[in-house]
Each structure stands twice: as structure tokens, then as C-alpha cells.
């Protein structure tokens, strides 16, 4: 076990834990933001540099500070380590610089982009970025590549986080896409426009932190904040079947995996669940998904219906406060009175 102090909060974590995961164990505002790290993907992280932290004390044995900011997703904790994130002005400055770099070639076409509203880069830029850019040159442009009828690739929006490549590597068999070229001109692509026909290839959409890979079946259907996320599941022979349905009215516009508070997918879902099952009758509805209060999706999202129904049930049965009622199929149905 190693004792580590992050922004003045001390926690004991197992050896080999990264600073980022130690911060996540503490939770709250001190957790560094991430773009390329994904908890379910091995060897992810280390590309985007948004999770930079300052190590002001290396360890108990060697108390010298690390000479420059380190990527917290790739640096393991040492016993007695002291880390500064929000408390360090130079880290906030450095992170603003990283955001500026990430946005240097980003087209900022959020009004057109289907990811807008649930985009990690948007959130990162709002929270850590600066208002203006100093970049004066023409932004990168690419010729459009069709990577199949299910996934839309917008290479200009890509920040080269490698998450999709690692997804293709680790959860699909037979990788058909990767990063071509190097440095400034590197780009994500399928090799010679091979169609992506793997059962789990759709998960690349979910892991993409920006709008580079989006669902083609949802393309321009709606803005995400007009759709209502609902958790649902079904018995799927291929995957866990635990998904999030995005409703507009009675219609399921999109099916995605469930993401945790850090925007990382919890369970991989197969392409059947994602693209083929777009009827309410295909699913068992669990209830409204949890949406962070500061998310634009939370506008008109009545998540508290769940709590409301639980309260009504409790009152009706005369049970004491704190008693949990189960929410089964039809919990959202206003005609359902059981």
C-alpha cells in the first residue's frame, strides 16, 4: 500500500495504482480531466496530456519534486508522494495550453457536430481552456473517407487519442483500422477503406471523446439535448445487453453503451443492440439515466420521476422513509399504476 496526498487529501492505495486512479478514488473536483485514458482499455492514456499534474514530492525515500508536470494516467504512485492538481497555478496554466493545442486543428464545427452536448473536448475547453486561440494558420483538412454505413468519420475533429484503435485492438477480433502516417499528418483510418463489419465495432463511437466517430444512423437526427436518455437492457447472446436508449418522443433515435461519470463506457455492446434494436418493445426499460446536473442534456430531463415514483409507492404502502421499491418494466409508463 502507498500513501499519496493529492491536493492536500491523503488516501492509501495499492501499489501500482496510477495518480489518476488514486484521484478518482478520492473523487470530486480534484480528479484530473482525461481525453485519451479509458478505464476499460488496456494501455490507453499518455497521448493527450490533459491529465497533467505536478508532483511536488516524489516519495518518502526520495522527496525531490519531479522536474516537470507528469501525465497522471501514466505515473504510478509512490509511498509518501504529494501531488498538486487544482492547487497548482502552473498546472492550470499548462492544461489551458494543452487545450489550446488540442483545439489548434479542431474545426470547432460544434453547431454541425452530432457529439455536441456530450463532447469531452467541449467540456474540457469550457472548464480549462481560454477564450481565444493564437493559432493563425489554416487548419488541417482531409479528404472524406467512407468507413461504412454505420459509422461516420470526421477526421478533422480527431484529437488522435487512440481510444478507437485500442478498442478495435482489444475487443474486436481482427483489427481493420488504425492510425496512418505520422506526426502532424497522422490520421485514423480503415486500411484502404475496408468496411468495418465486426460485431463490436460500434463501440468505437462510444469511446470517441470528440465527434470524429459518430453514429451514422443518428446523423443529424436531433441534437443530443432534445433526446431523453433511458437505461434499458435485453437478453443479448453476444453482449451484456445493458444500454442507454435516447428517446425523442416515442421514438428511439439512438442506442449507446452506458457511460460512467467520467464519460467512459461501462459495458461494451454489440452492433445488433446498437443498430438493429430501435423499438421500445425490444427492451426492458429500467428508468431515466443519471445525467449530471451541469450537462446540457439535463434540460427538461425528469430523472426525479424515478424518485417521485418511489416516494409515491412508499406513501401508498405506508412504508417508512428510505425503503427501496423496485422499479421494473413500465416504471416510466404513466398508465402503469401498480
Amino acid at each position, binding site marked *: 500500500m502507498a500513501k499519496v496526498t493529492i491536493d492536500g487529501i491523503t488516501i492509501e492505495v495499492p501499489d501500482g495504482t496510477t495518480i489518476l486512479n488514486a484521484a478518482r478514488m478520492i473523487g470530486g473536483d480534484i480528479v484530473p480531466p482525461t481525453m485519451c485514458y479509458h478505464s476499460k482499455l488496456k494501455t490507453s492514456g499518455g497521448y493527450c496530456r490533459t491529465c497533467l499534474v505536478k508532483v511536488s514530492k516524489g516519495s518518502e525515500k526520495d522527496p525531490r519534486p519531479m522536474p516537470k508536470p507528469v501525465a497522471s494516467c501514466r505515473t504510478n504512485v509512490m509511498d509518501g508522494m504529494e501531488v498538486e492538481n487544482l492547487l497548482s497555478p502552473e498546472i492550470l496554466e499548462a492544461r489551458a495550453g494543452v487545450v489550446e493545442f488540442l483545439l489548434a486543428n479542431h474545426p470547432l*464545427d460544434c*453547431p454541425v457536430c452530432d457529439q455536441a452536448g456530450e463532447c469531452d473536448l467541449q467540456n474540457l475547453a469550457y472548464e480549462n481552456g481560454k477564450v481565444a486561440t493564437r493559432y493563425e494558420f*489554416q487548419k488541417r*483538412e*482531409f479528404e472524406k473517407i467512407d468507413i461504412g454505413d454505420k459509422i461516420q468519420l470526421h477526421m478533422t475533429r480527431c484529437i488522435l487519442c487512440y481510444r478507437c484503435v485500442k478498442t478495435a485492438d482489444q475487443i474486436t477480433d481482427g483489427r481493420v483500422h488504425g492510425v496512418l502516417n505520422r506526426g502532424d499528418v497522422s490520421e485514423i483510418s480503415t486500411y484502404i477503406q475496408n468496411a468495418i463489419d465486426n460485431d463490436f465495432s460500434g463501440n468505437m463511437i462510444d469511446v470517441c471523446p470528440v465527434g470524429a466517430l459518430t453514429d451514422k444512423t443518428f446523423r443529424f437526427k436531433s*441534437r443530443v*439535448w432534445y433526446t431523453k436518455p433511458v437505461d434499458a437492457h435485453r437478453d443479448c447472446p453476444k453482449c451484456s445487453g445493458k444500454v442507454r436508449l435516447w428517446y425523442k418522443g416515442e421514438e428511439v433515435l439512438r442506442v449507446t453503451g452506458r457511460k460512467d461519470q467520467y464519460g467512459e463506457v461501462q459495458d461494451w455492446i454489440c452492433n445488433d443492440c446498437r443498430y438493429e434494436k430501435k423499438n421500445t418493445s425490444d427492451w426492458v426499460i429500467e428508468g431515466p439515466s443519471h445525467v449530471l446536473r451541469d450537462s*446540457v442534456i439535463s434540460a427538461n430531463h425528469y430523472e426525479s420521476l424515478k424518485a417521485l415514483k418511489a416516494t409515491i409507492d412508499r406513501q401508498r404502502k405506508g412504508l417508512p422513509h428510505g425503503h427501496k421499491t423496485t422499479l421494473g418494466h413500465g416504471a416510466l409508463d404513466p398508465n402503469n399504476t401498480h
Partner: protein
Amino acid sequence: MALTNRSKQVAVRELTFMERLYLPAIIKGMMITLSHIFKRTPTVKYPDQIREMAPVYRGQHVLKRDEAGAERCTACGLCAVACPAEAITMESAERKKGEENLYREEKYARIYEINMLRCIFCGLCEEACPKEAIFLTDRIVPSSFTRGEEIFGKDLLVEAMNERIDVSKRQRPEVLEFKKDKRHLHNLTYQDARPKTTAHH
């Protein structure tokens, strides 16, 4: 039983002879009416006569086109989410090849409707718009006989190229200055050639 001790007993007084004639009161009232004939009338004879408006008057909306005539709106939905009256609805579609002269961006509003009965003309849609597409103008929304007519679609909102609507009064000098800067994608029309910087294969 009185609830408080502040209640007063009201007695209906018998009218005097003069009061019972009623004539003096009628004449007094008529005099007031007559005196108004000689006063200046506050109404204007619209549309023959148009009242002077503030330069930032917020009237009927316009959906702007750019200099080349392409629609600026890209159906991002920010106006609708900013609208406190929920008066705006839209449906987007993807621009097809050959439509570049009609729509600026690869997505456009196929349907764009403002319910003028709901609209409170607050101007938040204009403030939210990232594309300088929607503006409130100094035009007055015409009245109509049915509610359906008050839902304005794109046919009534998008400006015609031969009679463009000047909205420069509602744009700050900094914005007008920024629009001259052709380095920004925002200010380019499809006709402006975009030099390719990255060779692909």
C-alpha cells in the same frame, strides 16, 4: 359579527334634488369627452404612417443568407434551447452534393418554425446563434385570422436575395469587424477557395 373593529357602517344616503335630475352629471361627462377631440391623438395610422422605432427594436425574425446567398442556419438547435417560450422547432437534414450554394454547412434546417404567438421577442435566439443566422428585425409581425398562420416557416423567415434585410444595426462594431477576417472558417463562403494544407496520400 365583526371580525375587526375597523369596519364602518355604510348608509345609503338619499340623493338631493340636483343629483336626482342627473343632467348636470351627464353634461359634465360629455364635456370631458368633448375636450378630448381637441387634444393630440396618440394613435398613428399604420401602415400609412410608421412610428419611429428604436434602432434595436425586436420584431419579426429573419433567417439570414450569406453574401453568396447560402442559408447561414445549420440547425444547431441553440436558439430553440435558449428560447424561454419554446417557440422554435426545427428539423435538420444533410446537405447533398450540388447544394453548396444553398446551404453554408453540411447540415441545414429542413424545417424551421417559429410560433409567433408563443414568441416573446426577447432576442435570446439571436444571442445564442453561433452562425449569425437569426436576427430580430424592426418589422412588425402581421396579424392573422387563424392560429396556424402565426406559425412562421422557412418561407416567411428566410430572407429573399432580392430584398435583403439589413441587420447591421443589431450587430456590434466588433462583430462587423471580425466578419472581414477571412482566416476564420466562419467568415468564408463556399466560393472562397480554401487552400489545402494537408496532402492526403
